[in-house]
C-alpha cells in the first residue's frame, strides 16, 4: 500500500464520519421527539462524532480500505414513546429518520454545489477545489448510505421498517430471516467484490452523473 492510497481513504473517511454522525443523531433526535429519552440520557443526542463512533466499524475498517463500516447503534426503547405514537409506527419513524437525514445532506450539499458553481467566477473555482470536492463526496456518500441502509436486511434500518409492516402471519418467517441477517449482509457486501456486479455503486454512479450534469448546465 502506498501512502497515496491511504491519503485518499482518509479524505473519504472524514465525510463518512460526518455523515454517519448525522445519521445516528437523526435516529436519536426522532426517538426523543417521539418521547423516548433513552438515547438522550446516554448522551447520544449529539452531533459530536466521537459519541457515535465504533473503534472497529468506524475507524479500522474504512481506513483499511474495506468498503463497509458501522457506527454504534442508537438504543431505542419504544415503550417510552408518547401515548399517541404506536410502537411499530414509532420504531419505523425512528428507523427511517437516519436514511432521510442522509438524503437531506445529499440534497443540501448538491444545492450548495449548484449555487457555488453558479455564483463563483470561473477563475476562483480552483481555489475552492477542496470544498467542491468535499461537497461532491458528501453527495455520493450520503446517497449511498441512504440506499444501503434501506436494504431490508437486519441490522440495517430498512429491516426495521419492514419489521413494522410485516403482518403477524408472516412474522415467524421474518424472524427466521432476521437471524440470518448479519451473514446475509456480509454476503451482500462481498458480492460486488467477487462478481463485479454492484447495483449500489451503479446507482451511485448514475446519481453522480446526474448531479455533475446539472452542475455542468448550471452556467
Amino acid at each position, binding site marked *: 500500500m502506498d501512502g497515496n492510497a491511504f*491519503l485518499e481513504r482518509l479524505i473519504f473517511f472524514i465525510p463518512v464520519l460526518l455523515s454517519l454522525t448525522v445519521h445516528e443523531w437523526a435516529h436519536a433526535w426522532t426517538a426523543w421527539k417521539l418521547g423516548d429519552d433513552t438515547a438522550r440520557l446516554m448522551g447520544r443526542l449529539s452531533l459530536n462524532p466521537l459519541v457515535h463512533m465504533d473503534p472497529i466499524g468506524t475507524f479500522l475498517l474504512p481506513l483499511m480500505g474495506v468498503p463497509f463500516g458501522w457506527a454504534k447503534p442508537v438504543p431505542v426503547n419504544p415503550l417510552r414513546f408518547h401515548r399517541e405514537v404506536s410502537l411499530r409506527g414509532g420504531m419505523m419513524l425512528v428507523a427511517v429518520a437516519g436514511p432521510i437525514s442522509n438524503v437531506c445532506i445529499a440534497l443540501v450539499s448538491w444545492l450548495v454545489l449548484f449555487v457555488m458553481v453558479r455564483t463563483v467566477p470561473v477563475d476562483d473555482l480552483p481555489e475552492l477545489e477542496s470544498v467542491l470536492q468535499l461537497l461532491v463526496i458528501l453527495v455520493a456518500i450520503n446517497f449511498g448510505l441512504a440506499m444501503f441502509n434501506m436494504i431490508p436486511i437486519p441490522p440495517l434500518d430498512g429491516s426495521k421498517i419492514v419489521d413494522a409492516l410485516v403482518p403477524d402471519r408472516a412474522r415467524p418467517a421474518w424472524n427466521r430471516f432476521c437471524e440470518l*441477517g448479519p*451473514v446475509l449482509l456480509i454476503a451482500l457486501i462481498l458480492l460486488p467484490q467477487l462478481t463485479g456486479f454492484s447495483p449500489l455503486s451503479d446507482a451511485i454512479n448514475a446519481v453522480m452523473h446526474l448531479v455533475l450534469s446539472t452542475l455542468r448546465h448550471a452556467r
Partner: protein
Amino acid sequence: MNSKIKTLLFWLALVAVFVWLYQSSRGGAARAVPFRAFEAGVKLGTVRSVEVDGNRIRFQADGPNRFETFGSLSPELWDELARREIEPTFSSSKGNDSLIYYLVIGIVLIVALVYFLRRVGSVGAGNILALGKSRAKLVEESKITFADVGGCHEAKEQFGDVIDFLRAPKRWTSAGVRLPRGVLLEGPPGSGKTHLARAVAGETGAKFYVVAASEFVELFVGVGASRVRDMFETAAKNAPAVIFIDEVDAIGRRRGSGLGGSHDEREQTLNQLLVCLDGFQQNARVVVIAATNRPDILDKALLRPGRFDRRIRMPALSRADRVEILGIHTRRKPLDPDVSLDEVAGWTEGYHGADLESAANEAGLLAVRRSRQQESEPAIRRDDFHQALRPRAEQNRLFDRLDAVLIESTSQLAEPTGRAVVRLVLRDQSTLEGDVVWADATYIKLRTRDDDAGILVPKLQVVRLEAVSGTEAVSRDDVVGDQWAGRLADLA
C-alpha cells in the same frame, strides 16, 4: 452549550483536516494524462525524468507538475530517452508489500467479522459471560482507622491478630500456626459492623472489597458459586485484601431448612464459600470478614474451626463508649461549651453507633438551621442534642401507649362487634370524641358526632387517649346497623 461549541469545533476541525489532506494529496499526486501526451513530451524534450512501475509510467515535465500515464516504453521511446540522456528508473510498488498487506487486512477482517457478529447477536441478550463475575466492589484505600471507631475495645483487640497477619505475615507463617482467616461479626443493626471491618482494612492499608451476600444470588443456578470463586481470585490477586461479606445470613442460612428443600442455588453458593474459605492458598493474605445480625440461623459449617472461627460480638455500648463515639462524630462539628458529651451519653442508654451518629448529625442540622436564622456561627448546644434525641423516644412511647389503650378498650367491649368510643386530647388541647373506624401505625380514623364522614387524626398529634366505651358503657341499641361495627376488634 459548552458541548455544542465543542461539537462545532470538532466539525470545523474535521473540515479543515479534509481541506489540508486534499491539498496535500493534490500536491504530491501525479496527474493522469494520455499516453500520447507522454510520447509527445519525450519527443519534444520537455520530459525531465521517467519512473516505470509495471505498466504505469510517472514522469516529470518542465514545471513542478508530475504526470502519470499507462503504457509501455517502445524501442523508439527508449532510443529517444537515451539520446536525451534520461535514464528511466524502475520500481514496483505492488510486489514487495502486497502479501503482508493483504495478510493484515485479512486478519483484521476476520477479527472485525467476529466482533460484528457478536455485537449484532448480543443485542438485548446482555453479556452472559459477565454474570459469573463477582459484584464485589473495591473500596479504594479505606481511610478509616481504629481511631474512628469508638468503643468496642474487645472487638478491636480481637482484630489485633488479624491486622498483624495482614501487615507482617512472616511472623505467623514461620511460627507454623494456622492463620486467622475468617471473622464473623455479630451484632444488632447499626452497631458498626461495616464500620469496624472498614477500619481493619484502613489499619492495614489492605484492599477492601465489599459485597452483600444477596448479590451472589441470581436467577441462574451456578452463578452464585462462580461469583464467590471470582471474588476470592480477585482478592488473592490483589492481596493483602479484606473481603467484607455483609448480611452473610442471606446465603449462610442453615442448609436444608428451606421450604421443600428446593433452593439448591443458595446451598451451592454456600458450599462454594465454604470450600473457598478452606482452600484458598495458605499464604494468601486475604481475610474474610462476614457480618450478620442473625448468628443463630447460620449454618454450623460456616462457624467451625478454620472458617469463620473467630466470632466477634459487637457489644452493647457502655457510657464511656458512647462518650467516645459521640466525640468521634462531633470531632468536626462546633460544640458549644455548655454541651457535656457525658450527659448526652447518659441520655442515650441502649443506643448503637449508628443511632449516636444520627443523633449527632441531627443536632448539627438543628444548630445550622438556628444559626441561619440568627445569622451567627453555628454551634451545637445542649438543647440541640435534647431536641435531636427527643422525637424518637417520645414518639415511640406515645405510640406504644396509644396502642395499649386502644387494644384495651376494644378487648373490654362487652359485645365484641360493638363500637369503641374514645376521647382524644390533641396537642392544641382540643378534644375529640368519636367511634374508632380504624387505626393503623400512624393514624386513627374517628367518626365524631357532628362529622359523619369521619376525620383522620395523626397519632403524633394525640396527647391523651381515653376509652369511653368501657365494658358496660356500650349500649346495644347503638350498635345495630353500624357498618363499621367490629372493625376495631379485627385490628386489635
